[in-house]
């Protein structure tokens, strides 16, 4: 489902990733960890084609990311649900519309949108904040809106970049339960996190990045 072959990514001043080989199967759940600035977010950006690799090949489902163009990139991205580390909520839209956006870009009829959005908000325990604007939400509430937006469209891949950074352990555990549930239903999930609690005792693969290098892989 997600395949990296000898992928490197260099920024002007920093090497973000060097010779990464990676293969995540359909329906797998995997974790990436590593210190701050190791390249975790960059790896995610390469998957959803927000950045292109400087060398190597990346294949996501049937797409090769460096062969995509303006017509196919949206197709790829509609199949991926992303929990952005920096949230990327639209400040001029309320919670409902922010979550609904993920469905609307997929051209899902408005009458189906409502039920799906409210379901997703219920899952992350934010049903009561439907009409609030992002600026009036607490940090953890904002993060849960982003999670709801990532899963509402039932994508085939979910990428979650530090999804529990602003969440207390109990809420975080709740979010992990959701991820496991949709993973069981067949969604491929890749989570970048510092929080060891998330992968402790899961038995899932945990890849460790350090300074752009894949240093080891273990089981959580």
């Amino acid at each position, binding site marked *: 489902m997600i395949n990296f072959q000898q992928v490197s990514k260099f920024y002007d001043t920093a090497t973000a990733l060097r010779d990464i080989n990676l293969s995540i199967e359909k329906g797998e759940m995997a974790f990436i960890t590593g210190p701050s600035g190791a390249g975790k977010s960059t790896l995610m950006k390469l998957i959803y084609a*927000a950045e292109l690799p400087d060398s190597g090949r990346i294949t996501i489902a049937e797409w090769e990311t460096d062969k995509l*163009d*303006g017509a196919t990139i*949206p197709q790829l991205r509609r*199949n*991926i649900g992303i929990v952005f580390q920096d949230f990327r909520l639209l400040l001029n*839209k309320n919670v409902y519309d922010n979550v609904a*956006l993920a469905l609307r*870009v997929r051209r899902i009829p*408005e009458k189906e949108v409502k039920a799906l959005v409210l379901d997703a908000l219920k899952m992350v325990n934010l049903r009561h904040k439907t009409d609030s604007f992002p600026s009036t939400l607490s940090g953890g509430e904002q993060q849960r809106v982003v999670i709801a937006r990532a899963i509402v469209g039932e994508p085939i891949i979910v990428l979650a970049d530090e999804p529990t950074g602003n969440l207390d352990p109990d809420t975080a555990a709740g979010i992990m339960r959701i991820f496991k549930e949709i993973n069981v239903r067949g969604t491929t999930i890749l989570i970048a996190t510092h929080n060891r609690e998330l992968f402790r005792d899961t038995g899932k693969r945990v890849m460790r990045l350090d300074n752009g290098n894949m240093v080891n892989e273990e089981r959580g």
Partner: protein
Amino acid sequence: MTYSIKLALQSLWHEKWINFLSMLTIAMGLLVVTLVVSSIYNVNLFARKLPEKFFIVAYLKEGLTEKETQHIMSSIKDRGSIARAKYISKADALKELKASLKDADYVLEGLDENPLPASIEIRMKKEAVGPEAVKSFADSLRKIEGIDDVQYGEKFLLSLHSMKTGMETIGLILTVVMISGIVFICYSTVKILFYRRKDEIETLKLLGATRGFIRTPFVIEGGVIGAVGGIISVIIAAAFYFSVFYKLSATVPVIRAVVFPTELFLSLPAVGLFLGITGSLIAMGRIRF
């Protein structure tokens, strides 16, 4: 599509003040352009009327029969570039001279014979009034049997002509500069407005939106801003017309001569719509993924 409209109206509403400012800016821009265009239109109208003041006098030879005079008149009137030709008999000419001498007209009393020649006063069509055209026309008149001499104000004609072309040129330049200036201002307003949305567009792209999906609400938004701007400008223009212009024309008669191009004003909302839509399309530029 209905969703795009909803999205556009939502974001219009969410930032209503700043959008209202842009609408007013576009309204002002449109108003300024129309005001200038209609001023220049009026000036040109005036300039175009100037040639009506110009005429040529053809003096007739002495002792022509009525038939001969008729013949000359009709041969002049046949020419395409003639607007009007008026026969002034010897008697009329004398009357005019007497009138111009005022109280001193007794000087003419001693005369036993009218010494003034009959003449034809010719007004040419406006578009035919030009230095070369008039000269060749006068020359051709001189060749007509029975015409003694042809006179016209050469100096007047020259200054008239240069005044007319001058006004037209300045008007054209002014219009072009103004319109491009205002179009640029509208563009820049929309551009600055959308520049703030860079992040929003970026997020939409990352969520898998197509170009069309991203553009539609922005274009609708731009269109609404432009159209409302146009409507506001019409309202301001109408208010201006009735409160100032209309009242003033009672006290200052010249204003009555000013033509207010109503169609131009009524087309402003459409112009605003067009400006807003193209403005937002250009402001967004090519969306690259």
